[in-house]
């Protein structure tokens, strides 16, 4: 009986390890697009996996871990932006550059224009377009990750696309 209990207790780390191996890179890239630097993105994703590990026994549906992780990463990115905003107000931290100079060269002018336009969107609009056009989530999946309704996602994305169209077409 004791050994059975131990095995049950050991199951979550094994599952999380597989999840970590399979999805860590994608989640870091997702966070990177929202926070702009890799080190912070890795921290956010590590936090998300730690949260899953800690709450493993309280998680009702272990088949829906990936959406849970995405939400956790999204919340982590929001927390990063909040901390940066406070630090900027108190002038104890400098703005994190979204791309290094080398990255800028690699991305090219056209893509940099897109990122500059995206950075001008509201926080919710940025999140919505990254979820829709990087992770290719449906409106329903995007809504679940963001914790809003499908209608909100639809209108948010629509407004974001209109704003981007204006900015990017102006630049031509």
């Amino acid at each position, binding site marked *: 009986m004791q050994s059975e209990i131990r095995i049950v207790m050991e199951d979550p780390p094994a599952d999380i390890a597989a999840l*970590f*191996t399979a999805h*860590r*890179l994608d989640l*870091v*890239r*997702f966070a*990177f*697009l929202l926070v702009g630097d*890799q080190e912070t*993105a*890795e*921290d*956010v994703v*590590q*936090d998300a996996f730690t949260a899953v590990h800690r709450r493993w026994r309280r998680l009702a549906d272990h088949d829906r871990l990936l959406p849970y992780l995405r939400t956790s990463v999204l919340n982590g990115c929001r927390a990063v932006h909040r*901390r940066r905003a*406070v*630090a900027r107000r*108190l002038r*104890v*931290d400098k703005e994190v550059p979204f*791309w*290094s*100079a*080398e*990255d800028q*060269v*690699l*991305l*090219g002018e*056209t*893509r940099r224009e*897109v*990122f500059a336009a*995206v950075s001008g969107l509201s926080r919710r609009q940025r999140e919505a*377009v*990254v979820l829709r*056009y*990087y992770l290719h989530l449906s409106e329903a999946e995007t809504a679940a990750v963001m914790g809003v309704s499908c209608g909100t996602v639809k209108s948010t994305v629509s407004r974001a*696309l*209109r704003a*981007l*169209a204006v900015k*990017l*077409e102006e630049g031509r």
Partner: protein
Amino acid sequence: MINRIEQRLQDAFTAGAELVRPETLRPADAVPRPRRRRILAPAMAALVVVALIGLGIEDGPDTPPPVSTAAGGPRFLLTAGSDGLAVRDARTGKITDRVVLPPALPPEEIPEAVPSGYLLTGTGYGTTFFVGQSMMSRTTPKNITWFHRLRVDDHGKVAELTKDVFFAAFGDRVTSIAVSSDGTRLAYSQDHKLCGTDMDSCPGARIVVTELSGRYTRTWTSKGFGNIWSLSWAADHRTLAFAVKSEIRAFDTAAFEATLRTSRVVVRDVATPTGVAISPDARTILVGRASSSSDRRSSIEEHAVANGRRIRTVYSTNTAARWTLVRYDVSGRHLLIKDTVHPLTRLDGNRTTTLSPADSLLATW
């Protein structure tokens, strides 16, 4: 129009996300605790520093090892040898791709130019490398060195070769190059035996730091300083280490009144040229040492930058050889080393891996 915007978004997000490359992620078995940067953090850090200074602790009671046995590190490296430039697997040394540089077209100021070799440097990630391609005149002591950037894909194949990413170095021979870990800042050294509009002979040495943007170039020249070797950057992108005459020096390139002559001497009585590498945290320097030919030993010693104190021997051989290469990866936990006798070797803690035959003269990751 919306469809076009959607396509541009997808394209930009895909390209942006791919800037995070799998090999640049922290090793999964060594992920540190997340940094909780609170507002009070700077004050707490200052208190800790004050406390440590008060206790007289400089390097800590047990300086962490510069290299680790943990798996990971750069996946690829670039080598130059008698068979040309090659990208190799950084764990096995197996060639994954050959590199063919575009033909160089020397300017008229370099009459009867002939190729005079390569210099290699990399960001330490094992994916982005820089090649200094030099040509020299057969009739005048004039040289030119172009700097090209090379990126490899996940399979070690050349994915991008960009010519002239930094301004070419003209005049005297370039003796050493080093690029910062973000690939934006290149430092190179020149013997500086040529000067003036007529390129007359002048004794001295020169270090040039130039940025990828082309907007920033700074030059330090010192007469009678001796040839400079083995440039390496710390992760702060401002501290350079190098060997000159019999000294290993650390140089703050961002300091307002910095000069080569006033740069900090970290280690003395070193036979140069030799391999030198400053750690990413700029706390320690690895120095290749060759003992006298009678006891036939050579070693790589670790010294504290703050006071030059020798910390330990990182690696040693029973051969009286000269170290030609000592190079950290971006994490500072893996080393690439080579001497004049042994083949290129990778050092992960106590584990050594021979990576290529001895005819690979230069290497970087």
